[in-house]
Protein backbone atom coordinates (compact mmCIF):
# COMPACT_ATOMS: atom_id res chain seq x y z
CA UNK A 1 0.00 0.00 0.00
CA UNK A 2 2.75 2.34 1.05
CA UNK A 3 4.85 1.48 -1.96
CA UNK A 4 1.88 2.13 -4.23
CA UNK A 5 1.40 5.51 -2.67
CA UNK A 6 5.03 6.36 -3.08
CA UNK A 7 4.95 5.30 -6.75
CA UNK A 8 1.86 7.44 -7.22
CA UNK A 9 3.62 10.36 -5.62
CA UNK A 10 6.60 9.71 -7.87
CA UNK A 11 4.47 9.75 -10.97
CA UNK A 12 2.85 12.98 -9.86
CA UNK A 13 6.29 14.41 -9.29
CA UNK A 14 7.39 13.24 -12.74
CA UNK A 15 4.30 14.80 -14.29
CA UNK A 16 5.04 18.03 -12.46
CA UNK A 17 8.61 17.97 -13.78
CA UNK A 18 7.35 17.26 -17.30
CA UNK A 19 4.78 20.04 -17.17
CA UNK A 20 7.25 22.43 -15.64
CA UNK A 21 9.84 21.67 -18.34
CA UNK A 22 7.22 22.03 -21.04
CA UNK A 23 6.01 25.29 -19.59
CA UNK A 24 9.33 26.59 -18.42
CA UNK A 25 11.38 25.85 -21.53
CA UNK A 26 9.59 28.45 -23.62
CA UNK A 27 10.60 31.09 -21.07
CA UNK A 28 14.04 30.67 -22.60
CA UNK A 29 12.16 32.14 -25.41
CA UNK A 30 14.35 33.57 -28.09
CA UNK A 31 16.39 31.15 -30.16
CA UNK A 32 19.10 32.40 -32.47
CA UNK A 33 20.55 30.24 -35.23
CA UNK A 34 23.71 30.72 -37.26
CA UNK A 35 26.09 28.46 -39.12
CA UNK A 36 28.84 26.86 -37.01
CA UNK A 37 31.65 27.61 -39.38
CA UNK A 38 32.01 29.52 -42.61
CA UNK A 39 34.83 29.72 -45.15
CA UNK A 40 35.72 32.57 -47.44
CA UNK A 41 38.51 33.64 -49.73
CA UNK A 42 40.48 36.85 -49.50
CA UNK A 43 38.79 39.67 -51.37
CA UNK A 44 35.47 37.89 -51.77
CA UNK A 45 32.32 38.41 -49.76
CA UNK A 46 30.67 36.15 -47.24
CA UNK A 47 27.14 36.08 -45.88
CA UNK A 48 26.78 35.68 -42.14
CA UNK A 49 23.28 34.36 -41.85
CA UNK A 50 21.39 34.70 -38.60
CA UNK A 51 17.82 33.62 -38.06
CA UNK A 52 15.84 33.58 -34.85
CA UNK A 53 12.64 32.31 -33.41
CA UNK A 54 10.70 34.24 -30.83
CA UNK A 55 7.57 33.38 -28.87
CA UNK A 56 6.40 36.97 -28.98
CA UNK A 57 5.28 39.08 -31.89
CA UNK A 58 8.13 40.88 -33.57
CA UNK A 59 7.92 44.24 -31.86
CA UNK A 60 9.20 47.56 -33.12
CA UNK A 61 11.72 47.54 -30.31
CA UNK A 62 13.55 44.52 -31.71
CA UNK A 63 17.31 44.87 -31.76
CA UNK A 64 19.91 42.78 -33.55
CA UNK A 65 23.58 43.03 -32.71
CA UNK A 66 26.62 41.43 -34.31
CA UNK A 67 29.78 41.15 -32.25
CA UNK A 68 33.19 40.27 -33.56
CA UNK A 69 35.95 38.63 -31.57
CA UNK A 70 39.20 38.45 -33.57
CA UNK A 71 41.29 35.29 -33.47
CA UNK A 72 43.77 35.23 -30.58
CA UNK A 73 41.96 38.11 -28.92
CA UNK A 74 39.75 38.19 -25.86
CA UNK A 75 37.97 41.41 -26.64
CA UNK A 76 34.71 41.40 -28.45
CA UNK A 77 33.70 44.45 -30.39
CA UNK A 78 30.29 45.42 -31.62
CA UNK A 79 30.23 45.85 -35.38
CA UNK A 80 26.55 46.08 -36.25
CA UNK A 81 23.41 47.11 -34.46
CA UNK A 82 19.83 47.24 -35.60
CA UNK A 83 17.29 49.08 -33.48
CA UNK A 84 14.05 50.98 -34.02
CA UNK A 85 13.89 49.89 -37.65
CA UNK A 86 17.27 51.40 -38.39
CA UNK A 87 20.57 49.57 -39.05
CA UNK A 88 23.72 51.08 -37.58
CA UNK A 89 26.87 49.90 -39.30
CA UNK A 90 30.48 50.10 -38.10
CA UNK A 91 31.94 53.17 -39.74
CA UNK A 92 35.16 53.60 -37.83
CA UNK A 93 36.61 50.16 -37.17
CA UNK A 94 38.09 47.43 -39.32
CA UNK A 95 34.77 46.75 -41.02
CA UNK A 96 34.31 50.31 -42.21
CA UNK A 97 32.18 50.34 -45.38
CA UNK A 98 32.41 46.56 -45.70
CA UNK A 99 29.23 45.46 -43.98
CA UNK A 100 25.90 45.29 -45.75
CA UNK A 101 22.59 44.68 -44.03
CA UNK A 102 20.47 42.13 -45.88
CA UNK A 103 18.20 40.93 -43.08
CA UNK A 104 14.58 41.65 -42.39
CA UNK A 105 13.34 41.36 -38.79
CA UNK A 106 9.75 40.80 -39.87
CA UNK A 107 10.98 37.62 -41.60
CA UNK A 108 13.02 36.71 -38.49
CA UNK A 109 16.25 37.29 -40.40
CA UNK A 110 19.25 39.24 -39.14
CA UNK A 111 21.87 38.40 -41.76
CA UNK A 112 24.73 40.63 -42.83
CA UNK A 113 27.24 40.43 -45.67
CA UNK A 114 30.92 41.22 -45.24
CA UNK A 115 32.60 42.40 -48.41
CA UNK A 116 36.23 42.35 -49.41
CA UNK A 117 37.46 39.83 -46.82
CA UNK A 118 40.87 40.20 -45.22
CA UNK A 119 42.98 37.84 -43.13
CA UNK A 120 42.28 39.99 -40.07
CA UNK A 121 38.60 39.01 -40.33
CA UNK A 122 39.43 35.55 -39.01
CA UNK A 123 37.51 35.14 -35.81
CA UNK A 124 34.19 34.57 -34.13
CA UNK A 125 31.05 36.50 -35.02
CA UNK A 126 28.19 36.49 -32.57
CA UNK A 127 24.61 37.22 -33.43
CA UNK A 128 22.47 38.57 -30.61
CA UNK A 129 18.77 39.28 -30.98
CA UNK A 130 16.52 40.92 -28.41
CA UNK A 131 12.81 41.15 -28.99
CA UNK A 132 11.39 42.98 -25.92
CA UNK A 133 9.81 41.71 -23.77
CA UNK A 134 11.36 38.49 -25.04
CA UNK A 135 14.97 39.00 -24.09
CA UNK A 136 16.05 35.73 -22.49
CA UNK A 137 17.99 33.45 -24.79
CA UNK A 138 21.36 32.37 -26.02
CA UNK A 139 23.38 34.12 -28.66
CA UNK A 140 24.76 32.14 -31.56
CA UNK A 141 28.29 32.13 -32.87
CA UNK A 142 29.82 31.53 -36.27
CA UNK A 143 33.54 31.13 -36.87
CA UNK A 144 34.89 32.67 -40.04
CA UNK A 145 38.01 31.30 -41.72
CA UNK A 146 39.57 33.34 -44.48
CA UNK A 147 41.72 31.39 -46.95
CA UNK A 148 43.86 32.40 -49.84
CA UNK A 149 41.81 30.00 -51.91
CA UNK A 150 39.25 27.64 -50.49
CA UNK A 151 40.82 24.15 -50.55
CA UNK A 152 39.11 21.59 -52.76
CA UNK A 153 36.94 19.45 -50.58
CA UNK A 154 38.02 15.86 -50.29
CA UNK A 155 36.30 13.61 -52.78
CA UNK A 156 35.23 16.24 -55.26
CA UNK A 157 37.88 15.33 -57.83
CA UNK A 158 37.30 11.63 -57.13
CA UNK A 159 33.59 11.90 -57.76
CA UNK A 160 34.10 14.15 -60.77
CA UNK A 161 36.54 11.75 -62.45
CA UNK A 162 34.42 8.65 -61.82
CA UNK A 163 31.21 10.35 -62.84
CA UNK A 164 32.77 11.96 -65.87
CA UNK A 165 34.33 8.79 -67.25
CA UNK A 166 31.23 6.67 -66.61
CA UNK A 167 29.06 9.34 -68.22
CA UNK A 168 31.36 9.53 -71.21
CA UNK A 169 31.34 5.76 -71.69
CA UNK A 170 27.56 5.72 -71.42
CA UNK A 171 27.19 8.48 -74.00
CA UNK A 172 29.58 6.72 -76.39
CA UNK A 173 27.69 3.45 -75.98
CA UNK A 174 24.36 5.13 -76.68
CA UNK A 175 25.74 6.88 -79.75
CA UNK A 176 27.32 3.67 -81.02
CA UNK A 177 24.06 1.78 -80.62
CA UNK A 178 22.09 4.53 -82.35
CA UNK A 179 24.50 4.54 -85.29
CA UNK A 180 24.37 0.77 -85.53
CA UNK A 181 20.58 0.80 -85.36
CA UNK A 182 20.29 3.42 -88.10
CA UNK A 183 22.80 1.58 -90.26
CA UNK A 184 20.97 -1.71 -89.87
CA UNK A 185 17.67 -0.09 -90.73
CA UNK A 186 19.10 1.55 -93.82
CA UNK A 187 20.71 -1.69 -94.83
CA UNK A 188 17.40 -3.47 -94.44
CA UNK A 189 15.51 -0.97 -96.58
CA UNK A 190 18.22 -1.09 -99.23
CA UNK A 191 18.02 -4.85 -99.20
CA UNK A 192 14.28 -4.70 -99.65
CA UNK A 193 14.57 -2.27 -102.55
CA UNK A 194 17.26 -4.35 -104.16
CA UNK A 195 15.28 -7.53 -103.93
CA UNK A 196 12.18 -5.77 -105.27
CA UNK A 197 14.21 -4.39 -108.15
CA UNK A 198 15.67 -7.74 -108.96
CA UNK A 199 12.25 -9.32 -108.97
CA UNK A 200 11.04 -6.63 -111.32
CA UNK A 201 14.03 -7.07 -113.58
CA UNK A 202 13.49 -10.79 -113.69
CA UNK A 203 9.88 -10.35 -114.62
CA UNK A 204 10.78 -7.75 -117.20
CA UNK A 205 13.48 -9.91 -118.60
CA UNK A 206 11.13 -12.85 -118.89
CA UNK A 207 8.42 -10.82 -120.57
CA UNK A 208 10.80 -8.66 -122.62
CA UNK A 209 7.91 -6.39 -123.52
CA UNK A 210 9.39 -3.44 -125.38
CA UNK A 211 6.11 -1.59 -125.23
CA UNK A 212 6.41 -0.88 -121.53
CA UNK A 213 10.02 0.00 -121.26
CA UNK A 214 9.94 3.64 -122.43
CA UNK A 215 8.17 4.94 -119.27
CA UNK A 216 10.89 3.40 -117.18
CA UNK A 217 13.53 5.08 -119.31
CA UNK A 218 11.79 8.41 -118.98
CA UNK A 219 11.69 8.08 -115.26
CA UNK A 220 15.39 7.36 -115.21
CA UNK A 221 16.16 10.39 -117.32
CA UNK A 222 13.97 12.69 -115.23
CA UNK A 223 15.60 11.68 -112.02
CA UNK A 224 18.99 10.96 -113.38
CA UNK A 225 20.53 12.52 -110.28
CA UNK A 226 18.41 10.73 -107.79
CA UNK A 227 19.33 7.25 -108.82
CA UNK A 228 17.73 5.80 -105.78
CA UNK A 229 14.30 7.19 -106.50
CA UNK A 230 14.78 6.16 -110.10
CA UNK A 231 15.50 2.63 -109.12
CA UNK A 232 12.52 2.76 -106.83
CA UNK A 233 10.28 3.85 -109.68
CA UNK A 234 11.86 1.27 -111.86
CA UNK A 235 11.07 -1.41 -109.37
CA UNK A 236 7.60 -0.08 -108.88
CA UNK A 237 7.09 0.03 -112.63
CA UNK A 238 8.35 -3.48 -112.82
CA UNK A 239 5.95 -4.58 -110.17
CA UNK A 240 3.09 -2.81 -111.87
CA UNK A 241 3.99 -4.41 -115.13
CA UNK A 242 4.10 -7.81 -113.62
CA UNK A 243 0.76 -7.26 -112.04
CA UNK A 244 -0.71 -6.18 -115.33
CA UNK A 245 0.92 -9.08 -117.02
CA UNK A 246 -0.63 -11.42 -114.60
CA UNK A 247 -4.02 -10.09 -115.47
Amino acid at each position, binding site marked *: MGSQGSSGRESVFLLAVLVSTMVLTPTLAIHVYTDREIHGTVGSKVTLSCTFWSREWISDDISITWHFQPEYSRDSISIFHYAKGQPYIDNVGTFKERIEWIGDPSWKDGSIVIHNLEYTDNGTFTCDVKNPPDIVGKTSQVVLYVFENV*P*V*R*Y*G*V*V*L*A*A*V*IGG*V*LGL*VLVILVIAYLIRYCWLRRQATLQRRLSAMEKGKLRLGRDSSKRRQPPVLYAMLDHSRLTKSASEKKSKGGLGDSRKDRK
Partner: protein
Amino acid sequence: MLLLLLGIIVLHVSVLVLLFVSTIVSQWLTSGVRVTDLWQNCTLGSLSDVFHCAQSSPNEWLQSVQALMILSIIFSVLSLFLFFCQLFTLTKGGRFYLTGIFQILAGLCVMSGAAIFTVRQSDWHQPSENLSFGFSYILAWVALPLALLSGVIYVILRKRE
Protein backbone atom coordinates in the same frame (compact mmCIF):
# COMPACT_ATOMS: atom_id res chain seq x y z
CA MET B 1 36.15 -25.38 -75.62
CA LEU B 2 35.19 -25.71 -72.02
CA LEU B 3 38.83 -25.53 -71.01
CA LEU B 4 39.26 -22.32 -73.00
CA LEU B 5 36.18 -20.82 -71.36
CA LEU B 6 37.45 -21.80 -67.93
CA GLY B 7 40.86 -20.32 -68.70
CA ILE B 8 39.36 -17.02 -69.78
CA ILE B 9 37.21 -16.79 -66.68
CA VAL B 10 40.16 -17.62 -64.44
CA LEU B 11 42.22 -14.93 -66.17
CA HIS B 12 39.45 -12.39 -65.76
CA VAL B 13 38.89 -13.21 -62.11
CA SER B 14 42.60 -13.04 -61.39
CA VAL B 15 42.71 -9.58 -62.98
CA LEU B 16 39.83 -8.58 -60.75
CA VAL B 17 41.57 -9.93 -57.65
CA LEU B 18 44.76 -8.08 -58.57
CA LEU B 19 42.82 -4.87 -59.02
CA PHE B 20 41.00 -5.26 -55.73
CA VAL B 21 44.14 -6.10 -53.80
CA SER B 22 46.17 -3.27 -55.27
CA THR B 23 43.38 -0.78 -54.62
CA ILE B 24 42.66 -1.82 -51.06
CA VAL B 25 45.91 -3.02 -49.52
CA SER B 26 47.96 -0.31 -47.92
CA GLN B 27 51.29 -0.95 -49.61
CA TRP B 28 51.77 1.52 -52.44
CA LEU B 29 54.81 3.14 -50.92
CA THR B 30 56.81 1.59 -48.12
CA SER B 31 59.79 2.31 -46.01
CA GLY B 32 60.81 0.78 -42.72
CA VAL B 33 58.53 2.87 -40.56
CA ARG B 34 56.02 4.20 -42.98
CA VAL B 35 53.39 2.72 -45.26
CA THR B 36 51.16 4.77 -47.47
CA ASP B 37 48.51 3.89 -49.95
CA LEU B 38 45.74 5.52 -51.81
CA TRP B 39 43.50 5.93 -48.82
CA GLN B 40 45.60 6.32 -45.71
CA ASN B 41 48.97 7.23 -44.47
CA CYS B 42 50.38 5.05 -41.71
CA THR B 43 53.43 5.51 -39.56
CA LEU B 44 54.89 3.02 -37.15
CA GLY B 45 54.83 4.49 -33.66
CA SER B 46 58.27 5.07 -32.20
CA LEU B 47 57.46 3.38 -28.91
CA SER B 48 54.95 0.70 -29.71
CA ASP B 49 54.56 -1.60 -32.67
CA VAL B 50 51.32 0.05 -33.64
CA PHE B 51 50.66 1.80 -36.92
CA HIS B 52 49.13 5.22 -36.60
CA CYS B 53 47.05 5.92 -39.63
CA ALA B 54 45.74 9.20 -40.92
CA GLN B 55 43.65 9.94 -43.95
CA SER B 56 45.73 10.53 -47.03
CA SER B 57 46.19 14.01 -48.37
CA PRO B 58 43.37 15.53 -50.42
CA ASN B 59 45.75 16.11 -53.31
CA GLU B 60 43.89 16.29 -56.64
CA TRP B 61 46.26 13.89 -58.39
CA LEU B 62 45.97 11.32 -55.63
CA GLN B 63 42.20 11.61 -55.87
CA SER B 64 42.36 11.00 -59.60
CA VAL B 65 44.48 7.89 -59.00
CA GLN B 66 41.84 6.66 -56.55
CA ALA B 67 39.13 7.41 -59.08
CA LEU B 68 40.94 5.56 -61.86
CA MET B 69 41.51 2.50 -59.71
CA ILE B 70 37.82 2.43 -58.78
CA LEU B 71 36.87 2.91 -62.42
CA SER B 72 39.07 0.02 -63.49
CA ILE B 73 37.37 -2.23 -60.95
CA ILE B 74 33.95 -1.07 -62.14
CA PHE B 75 34.83 -1.70 -65.78
CA SER B 76 36.32 -5.10 -65.06
CA VAL B 77 33.29 -6.22 -63.05
CA LEU B 78 31.01 -4.88 -65.77
CA SER B 79 33.04 -6.76 -68.34
CA LEU B 80 32.70 -10.04 -66.45
CA PHE B 81 28.96 -9.45 -66.16
CA LEU B 82 28.67 -8.66 -69.85
CA PHE B 83 30.68 -11.76 -70.69
CA PHE B 84 28.14 -13.98 -68.99
CA CYS B 85 25.32 -12.07 -70.65
CA GLN B 86 26.88 -12.37 -74.07
CA LEU B 87 27.71 -16.01 -73.49
CA PHE B 88 24.00 -16.76 -73.46
CA THR B 89 22.63 -14.15 -75.86
CA LEU B 90 25.25 -13.87 -78.56
CA THR B 91 24.55 -15.57 -81.87
CA LYS B 92 26.88 -18.31 -82.95
CA GLY B 93 30.09 -16.98 -84.43
CA GLY B 94 29.68 -13.56 -82.83
CA ARG B 95 32.55 -11.85 -81.11
CA PHE B 96 32.60 -10.55 -77.52
CA TYR B 97 33.30 -6.98 -78.59
CA LEU B 98 31.53 -5.25 -75.72
CA THR B 99 33.14 -7.44 -73.07
CA GLY B 100 36.55 -6.95 -74.62
CA ILE B 101 36.17 -3.19 -74.91
CA PHE B 102 35.27 -2.86 -71.24
CA GLN B 103 38.16 -5.07 -70.17
CA ILE B 104 40.59 -3.04 -72.26
CA LEU B 105 39.12 0.13 -70.74
CA ALA B 106 39.78 -1.32 -67.27
CA GLY B 107 43.37 -1.99 -68.31
CA LEU B 108 43.79 1.54 -69.62
CA CYS B 109 42.36 2.96 -66.37
CA VAL B 110 44.84 0.99 -64.28
CA MET B 111 47.63 2.10 -66.55
CA SER B 112 46.79 5.79 -66.28
CA GLY B 113 46.25 5.52 -62.53
CA ALA B 114 49.57 3.83 -61.92
CA ALA B 115 51.31 6.22 -64.31
CA ILE B 116 49.90 9.26 -62.52
CA PHE B 117 50.96 7.75 -59.21
CA THR B 118 54.49 7.17 -60.49
CA VAL B 119 54.90 10.70 -61.76
CA ARG B 120 53.07 12.59 -59.05
CA GLN B 121 53.85 10.62 -55.88
CA SER B 122 56.31 13.26 -54.70
CA ASP B 123 53.47 15.78 -54.51
CA TRP B 124 51.94 14.33 -51.37
CA HIS B 125 54.98 13.40 -49.32
CA GLN B 126 58.47 14.68 -48.85
CA PRO B 127 60.88 13.15 -51.37
CA SER B 128 63.50 12.90 -48.63
CA GLU B 129 61.63 10.09 -46.90
CA ASN B 130 63.32 7.40 -48.96
CA LEU B 131 60.19 5.47 -49.78
CA SER B 132 60.13 2.64 -52.26
CA PHE B 133 57.21 1.29 -54.20
CA GLY B 134 55.32 -1.45 -52.42
CA PHE B 135 53.67 -4.59 -53.73
CA SER B 136 50.25 -3.02 -54.32
CA TYR B 137 51.84 -0.70 -56.83
CA ILE B 138 53.53 -3.64 -58.57
CA LEU B 139 50.26 -5.59 -58.61
CA ALA B 140 48.59 -2.66 -60.32
CA TRP B 141 51.22 -2.76 -63.06
CA VAL B 142 50.87 -6.55 -63.32
CA ALA B 143 47.12 -6.18 -63.69
CA LEU B 144 47.56 -3.95 -66.72
CA PRO B 145 49.00 -6.50 -69.23
CA LEU B 146 46.69 -9.22 -67.93
CA ALA B 147 43.64 -7.00 -68.38
CA LEU B 148 44.74 -6.00 -71.88
CA LEU B 149 45.47 -9.64 -72.74
CA SER B 150 42.07 -10.84 -71.60
CA GLY B 151 40.44 -7.91 -73.41
CA VAL B 152 42.19 -8.82 -76.65
CA ILE B 153 41.22 -12.48 -76.20
CA TYR B 154 37.60 -11.45 -75.81
CA VAL B 155 37.74 -9.41 -79.00
CA ILE B 156 39.40 -12.23 -80.98
CA LEU B 157 37.23 -14.98 -79.55
CA ARG B 158 34.29 -16.20 -81.56
CA LYS B 159 31.38 -17.84 -79.90
CA ARG B 160 30.83 -21.50 -80.56
CA GLU B 161 28.09 -23.73 -79.33
